[in-house]
């Protein structure tokens, strides 16, 4: 297994792990969003979606463990990269200017990442590790967003997620070696569209639940 550790532990190997886990999260977000949109069909639709999901039983546990495994890799590798990259330039420039390569997304990756991590912890406390006896998931969610503070936090977190993904999505393809003159402009376009879908799709739900139903 020496070769595997050597390959994955290299700078490119660490990027590969970030890319594969990050792409996994993008897929998860797409699925999660599709499920959450049932809220617009009313509380019964949303509750029955949740029930169907949980009736999958062991499959759901498996998916959760998979996500947790991906999260551990993404967070530990991301943190390692962040510190190594800081260390690679111990003495900073006194004038910093960009040539137009960096974007808000690319320059903030570690920071948006850490904000997302804190959000994910809060999100799990809010809706996963709660007592669900004698209530429905709709009631829990609706109750939470009665608090304008939560609405603000959730909307903010979704904007942060969109910024993270705006760089992350196309970056995955570059990291995997899939940079082709014919497809790269399209992949960069999808990157922007997907981050907008995440920001608007997830971000509007708390507002809708708090003020429109």
């Amino acid at each position, binding site marked *: 297994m*020496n*070769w595997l550790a*050597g*390959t994955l532990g*290299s*700078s*490119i*190997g*660490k*990027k*590969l792990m970030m890319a594969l886990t990050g792409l996994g999260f993008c897929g998860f977000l797409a699925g999660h969003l599709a499920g959450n949109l049932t809220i617009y069909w009313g509380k019964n639709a949303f509750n029955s979606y949740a029930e169907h999901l949980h009736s999958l039983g062991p499959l759901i546990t498996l998916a959760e463990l998979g996500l947790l495994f991906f999260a551990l890799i993404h967070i530990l590798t991301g943190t390692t*990269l962040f510190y*190594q*990259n800081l*260390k*690679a*330039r*111990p*003495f*900073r*420039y*006194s*004038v*910093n*200017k*960009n*040539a*137009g*390569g*960096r974007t808000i997304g*690319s*320059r903030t*990756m570690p920071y948006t990442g850490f904000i997302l991590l804190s959000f994910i912890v809060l999100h799990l406390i809010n809706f996963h590790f709660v007592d669900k006896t004698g209530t429905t998931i709709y009631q829990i969610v609706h109750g939470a967003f009665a608090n304008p503070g939560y609405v603000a936090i959730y909307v903010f977190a979704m904007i942060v997620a969109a910024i993270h993904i705006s*760089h992350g999505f*196309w*970056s995955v393809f*570059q*990291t*995997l*070696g*899939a*940079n*082709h*003159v014919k497809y790269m402009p399209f992949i960069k376009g999808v990157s922007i569209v997907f981050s907008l879908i995440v920001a608007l799709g997830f971000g509007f739900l708390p507002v809708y639940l708090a003020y429109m139903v």
Partner: protein
Amino acid sequence: MTKTINLTLKIWRQKGPEAKGKLETYKANDIPTDMSFLEMIDVVNEKLTLEGKEPVAFDHDCREGICGMCGTVVNGRPHGSEKGTTLCQLHMRHFSDNDTIVIEPWRSRAFPIIKDLVVDRSALDKIIQAGGFISVNTGNAQDANAIPIPQETAELAMDAAACIGCGACVAACPNASAMLFLSAKVSQLALLPQGKPEAARRAVSMVREMDRLGFGNCSNETECEAECPKEISITNIARLNREFYKAGFFSSEK
């Protein structure tokens, strides 16, 4: 009549590798705009020498944009703000009268400062020594037409081979990564039949050497490609990644 301009320069001065450096201010008056940036520093240095002061140390050689020796960060931009231009080919007509110009050395843990604006870039040579070559038996060169290479492939290899190893990509990268340099050196050989036999060993040992030397990791910021005086594309980095995965996962290379 040649137009002349007056400039205020803030130049990084540092006596030696261990010394503490700082930005010092100099006047450069009556600089003809036809001069190159390096000639402008020459003028400043002549004046300093006549005054009995230590001239500013900076690297240069060909002064025609092909050797890769020159390079400093000018107002936050490696080789200055002109696209696809080395510092020696940057002309003073791109500056205005009374401009203040801040001149700093490449900054990276892997490039220790030797003096003033001169940094030690032998780390890039070490990366090449780790595998940036092909092994051939000496003897008669074989007939050039014996190995057919499509024109398009030859062009891609040539584009990668345009890298002059100046280190601007490292200086420009927010993470001080040498991936653009390494990707050009791996690509120019990986694209051609002569480079194929050693491709796996080359990719693995060059990446390993780069990591060992203390460069940062690529995070696809793409600043390198924007600053490269030879406009090397990050599609080379994608190719390097592919070469590395092939070598790491599908070859017998350890």
